[in-house]
């Protein structure tokens, strides 16, 4: 049996939660589908201090607050994974690993997932020293030496968090300067536990039962070395979760969905918002803004195309 809604939102990060709030307040019967943790990437973020009006809050707590707020207006949350999408009789059918959902409008807010290095040892040692979430795992490496791979905001944020536990945090970055925002760079450079290894990539993660080191290669000199660390935290960017939509929705080469300023995909009643869309600023506040825009556009679309 398919479940019928006015609006189905696929993905429960800031974009989806904001869309859910706006859609529910527009009195549209709305379902939010989430395959993992509400909040998405922010649920793994230790502290968020750039959401206007909120000086500092845990990412998980902000997501829970957004969820409570949206649910208080009638948003229904389903913990299922979307696997496919198709048009039928002027509506959309979202297939999931459980029920099917039928909706007049669908908003894709499926977000982005972290990139993996793709080197030997990485998959085998995930959860055994290889981690993509310092806030989850850093505490297991108290007084140990660890490595953080990457040079962006996430790498600095998580490196700084890890330094509360680890005795030494090596930041391994493939370029000779960071991409992270100035304020995070300042904090990272000022932290005595953080050490920077420039122009260097990880080529293998070493260890049998647990991580014992990382094999490195300097991309300028070609020199190889082994860094004896007990953990490797990997923050090397993200890719949009749009594989399940390939061939259906116009995307750029990176798999980001192409939308206009109303978050319209060009397919009737189908919208995309947040990190899945092309040219997203990839911030909590901009994703929330995208979600609100998409919900307003979806509400208007339903008013114009369905008799009420």
């Amino acid at each position: 049996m398919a479940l019928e809604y006015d609006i189905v939102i696929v993905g429960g990060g800031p974009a989806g939660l904001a869309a859910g709030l706006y859609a529910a307040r527009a009195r549209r019967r709305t379902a939010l589908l989430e395959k993992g943790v509400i909040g998405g990437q922010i649920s793994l973020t230790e502290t968020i201090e750039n959401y206007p009006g909120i000086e500092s809050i845990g990412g998980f707590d902000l997501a829970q607050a957004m969820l409570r707020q949206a649910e208080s207006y009638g948003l229904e949350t389903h913990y299922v994974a979307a696997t496919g999408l198709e048009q039928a009789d002027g509506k959309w059918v979202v297939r999931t690993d459980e029920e099917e959902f039928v909706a007049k409008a669908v908003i894709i807010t499926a977000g982005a997932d972290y990139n993996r290095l793709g080197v030997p040892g990485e998959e085998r040692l995930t959860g055994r020293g290889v981690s993509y979430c310092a806030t989850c795992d850093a505490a297991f490496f108290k007084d140990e030496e660890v490595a953080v791979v990457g040079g962006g905001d996430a790498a600095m944020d998580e490196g700084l968090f890890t330094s509360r536990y680890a005795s030494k945090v090596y930041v391994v970055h493939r370029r000779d300067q960071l991409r992270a925002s100035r304020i995070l760079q300042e904090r990272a450079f000022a932290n005595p536990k953080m050490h920077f290894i420039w122009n260097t990539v990880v080529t293998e993660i070493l260890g049998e039962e647990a991580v014992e080191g990382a094999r490195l290669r300097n991309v300028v000199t070609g020199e190889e070395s082994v860094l004896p660390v007990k953990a490797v935290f990997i923050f090397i960017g993200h890719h949009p979760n749009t594989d399940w939509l390939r061939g259906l929705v116009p995307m750029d080469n990176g798999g980001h969905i192409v939308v206009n300023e109303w978050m319209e995909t060009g397919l009737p009643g189908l919208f995309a918002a947040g990190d899945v869309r092309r040219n997203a600023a990839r911030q909590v506040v901009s994703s929330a803004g995208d979600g609100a825009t998409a919900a307003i556009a979806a509400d208007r679309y339903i008013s114009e195309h369905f008799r009420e």
Partner: protein
Amino acid sequence: MAKPKDVTDAEFEQEVLKADLPVLVDFWAPWCGPCRMVAPIVEELAQEYDGKVKFVKVNTDDNVDTAVRYGIRSIPTLLVFKGGEPVAQVIGFRPKSELKKVLEKALS
């Protein structure tokens, strides 16, 4: 009412290794966001598998010995024990449907 019981290092052998039923152990800590998402799912599973599987929780901050003994380096981690031996492991947050599959496989 089957609610996951908090188990300490000292109780682990009696409560888990010597248990008659298979045991699902939820390794967690208060500061771990995803662990707070797993907890309600584990509670639901505890109701559904009442009488078939025993459910316990180990706070890794307070019970370091057990976490170290089973090589826990990431939470949430769920371990399923049968006859005192770990037979299945789930690292990181997984939806309920996937956890049920792991339990069914471990029970069969």
